[in-house]
């Protein structure tokens, strides 16, 4: 690579990394004058698919190992897990259904939402519901976790299954409750450089930043777990 | 102006900016022929009476005002034969004719029966199921007339209803129309370019010219003493106007010569031949003098004089062949 002049690297990252990666990209640009980091956020599955199809990009970061697997043909380095996440139950700030703990979602009249079972967040939610023997059906299976959060913050649902990081990002908009056994069902966020990268050194440096202590601090602050 | 007059028939004054300013009255049961050159405002007059063109003025029919308060088109109980027929393209001939009956509340069965009877009467009963585009021009015209007559309207507005009809059908329709009009109190306005219609079918003639009423009267009077070139042509007369005095003479009374005529002919004109056309056994010659005049000459005379467009000729007519009159104050 070269550090001279207008160089750009493109990072394909899962939507749940929007805040943290934006922060890290700023950091990276500061550390590497003349380098611009472009971020393309989308769902992990879409990004993995695009990476395989040769979409321009230097780094890929997904929200679960399964999707990273589908992109393995396009990877230039072995994926490294840089963060983990667990699920919590959130309710709207005013908690209209009067939920006091996880068990209350079984109450009649409580409307709760989860992700579709095909999405990473849905797989985890399904496992947790199963582990806890919950019978009540969700009102909706949202396509991604942000849609679940949106349903809760807009008061359309009484409760929803989201990641700890989402709950933390939503701050006062939600009230958060622990889900029993959630620590048994963590998700992992892997990152890798891509074959098509023309700036493989810079790409690797970005991966290094993400996995460095500085990077880990950003994730911890946002509520992620560390591997 | 007839603003406050309410007759049992029709009484109307209508003004359309730049196109029409006409007053018309007719007794119950009358047929009024509306004649005038192309663009005189005949169609505009009919549309204004029907309420289809925004017009100032007033209209009353059968003792009832249609204008104060305004009466909706659909409540005017009129029948309109449009110059372009305007048959509903998606309906069969039968449904076209039944339309007016059904929209005035007649049951389907009854409306169909009545409509069928009208089609039969006009000789197109066997075409009842056809769409307008499967009809010939004259067949469509008959359906359009049947459609306007079927609901027995108070005011019939017929815009050149006999155009495009073959002579047999036109005669039959004239008879049918006369019979129909005789039996009810409605008023019919009949726009026509045909002298026969105006002279035979109408009780009164209204002559329009450039949007104003040039003459009204009994057909025979209008034909004998036309005040517009158009009517003069229609009845085949030469008419010369000087102020409010008119003089007319027949084309056959006109002598055509190459040299300036001498002797007793008091009226003489000089001009170029515009055109020639056979006219019955004679040849009709159109000459551009200080006005356009027509003369009928024998084919032999035409050949002898070498008449052809552009040829300069003299026309003369004897005083005895000229009728002179003044226009009645309108």
């Amino acid at each position, binding site marked *: 690579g070269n550090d001279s002049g207008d160089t750009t690297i493109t990072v394909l990252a899962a939507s749940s990394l929007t805040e943290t990666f934006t922060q890290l990209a700023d950091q990276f640009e500061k550390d590497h004058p003349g380098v611009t980091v472009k971020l393309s956020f989308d*769902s*992990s*599955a*879409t990004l993995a*698919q695009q990476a395989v199809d040769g979409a321009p990009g230097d780094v890929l970061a997904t929200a679960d190992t399964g999707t990273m697997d589908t992109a393995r043909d396009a990877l230039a380095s072995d994926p490294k897990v840089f963060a983990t996440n667990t699920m919590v139950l959130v309710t709207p700030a005013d908690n209209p259904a009067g939920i006091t703990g996880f068990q209350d979602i079984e109450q009649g009249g409580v*409307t709760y*939402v989860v992700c*579709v079972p*095909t*999405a990473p967040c849905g797989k985890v939610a399904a496992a947790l519901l199963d582990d806890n023997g919950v019978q009540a*059906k*969700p*009102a*909706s*299976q*949202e*396509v991604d976790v942000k*849609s679940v959060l*949106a*349903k809760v913050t*807009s*008061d*359309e649902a009484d409760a929803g299954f989201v990641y700890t990081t989402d709950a933390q990002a939503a701050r006062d908009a939600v009230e958060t409750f622990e889900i029993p056994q959630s620590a048994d069902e963590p998700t992992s966020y892997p990152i890798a450089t891509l074959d098509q990268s023309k700036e493989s050194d810079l790409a690797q440096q970005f991966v290094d930043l993400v996995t460095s202590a500085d990077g880990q601090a950003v994730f911890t602050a946002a509520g992620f777990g560390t591997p | 102006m007839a603003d406050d007059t309410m007759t049992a028939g029709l009484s109307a004054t209508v003004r359309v900016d730049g196109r029409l300013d006409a007053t018309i009255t007719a007794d119950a049961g009358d047929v009024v022929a509306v004649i005038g050159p192309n663009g005189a405002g005949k169609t505009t007059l009919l549309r204004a009476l*029907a309420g*289809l063109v925004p017009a100032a003025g007033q209209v009353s029919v059968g003792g009832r005002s249609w204008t104060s308060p305004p009466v*909706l*088109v*659909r*409540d*005017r*109980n*009129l*029948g*309109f034969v*449009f110059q372009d027929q*305007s048959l*509903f*393209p*998606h309906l069969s001939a039968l449904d076209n004719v039944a*339309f*007016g009956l059904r*929209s*005035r509340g007649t049951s389907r069965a009854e409306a169909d029966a009545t409509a069928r009877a009208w089609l039969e009467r006009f000789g197109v009963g066997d075409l009842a199921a056809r769409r307008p585009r499967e009809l010939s021009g004259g067949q469509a015209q008959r359906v359009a007339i049947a*459609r306007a007559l079927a*609901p027995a309207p108070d005011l019939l507005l017929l815009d050149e209803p006999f155009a495009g009809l073959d002579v047999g059908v036109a005669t039959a329709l004239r008879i049918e129309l006369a019979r129909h009009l005789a039996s009810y109190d409605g008023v019919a306005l009949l726009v026509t370019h045909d002298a026969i219609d105006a002279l035979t079918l109408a009780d009164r003639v209204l002559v329009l010219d450039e949007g104003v009423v040039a003459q009204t009267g009994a057909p025979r009077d209008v034909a004998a003493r036309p005040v517009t070139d158009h009517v003069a042509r229609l009845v085949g007369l030469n008419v010369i106007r000087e102020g409010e005095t008119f003089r007319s003479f027949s084309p056959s009374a006109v002598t055509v010569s190459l040299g300036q005529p001498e002797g007793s002919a008091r009226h003489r004109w000089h001009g170029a031949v515009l055109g020639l056309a056979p006219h019955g056994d004679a040849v009709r010659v159109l000459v551009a003098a200080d006005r356009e005049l027509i003369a009928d000459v024998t084919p032999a005379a035409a050949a002898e004089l070498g008449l052809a467009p552009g040829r300069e000729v003299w026309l003369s007519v004897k005083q005895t062949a000229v009728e002179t009159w003044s226009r009645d104050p309108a």
Partner: protein
Amino acid sequence: MTRSARPLGRPPLVLVVPGTVAAALLVLPLITLVLDTPWGSFWDEVRTQAVRDALRITALASAVTVVACLVLGTPLAWLLARVDFPGRSVLRAAVAVPLVLPPVVAGVALVTALGRHGVVGALLRDAGLTIPYTTTAVVIAHTFVSMPFYVLSVEGALRAGGEQYDVVAATLGADRWTTFRRVTLPLAMPGVMAGAMLAWARSLGEFGATITFAGNYPGTTQTMPSLIYGALQADPQVARTLSMVLLVVSLAILAALRNRWLTTP
């Protein structure tokens, strides 16, 4: 023989060439999509409960959408085309707005109006009516995004037809409703049919507004497009097969209706 199939002559290249390019652009991706589909698993996919439910809800929502367009959209198109009321041009522009909104934003708009805390939704909820997460919500979302296509198409047809025959009907004593039923509407039929087809097709493909406003629950609010979108996240091959199910079903209906509609003007 004066009998000739093409008395007006052969279509000119200057039209045939771009027309063919357009056709290729539209058709080629479909062909490759069909070729890339794992047809072996087609019937297995079709038989799953989730697909059957989603097909049912999609069919229901698109059918209700078409009915809503015909019953509500037609009068609206007529008002816009024929009646001169204050604010007409503002309303005309407003009706076109849902066309411009990304579907997800359209869903957000519906939430603000009819959601549990929406202006109207709150009233309805007090009256014991909950719309979100029900099949009703799916139908409303579909109607909201599809109806503008219908209204614009029909308004165009009504304007193109002109008022000529309305006037003729009035001279025959017909009131406006009779005129509308027996003259205006039949004459605008090609536009009504084209509009209904556009709205129906748009409804079949809709998912952004639905997933935002009605959610995505199998058996009540999950439509085929939602199901396909979900599958795309997990297994693109399954998603392709599901797309083919939607495609085959709608093509069958299209082929059955379209030629009939368009060839009887």
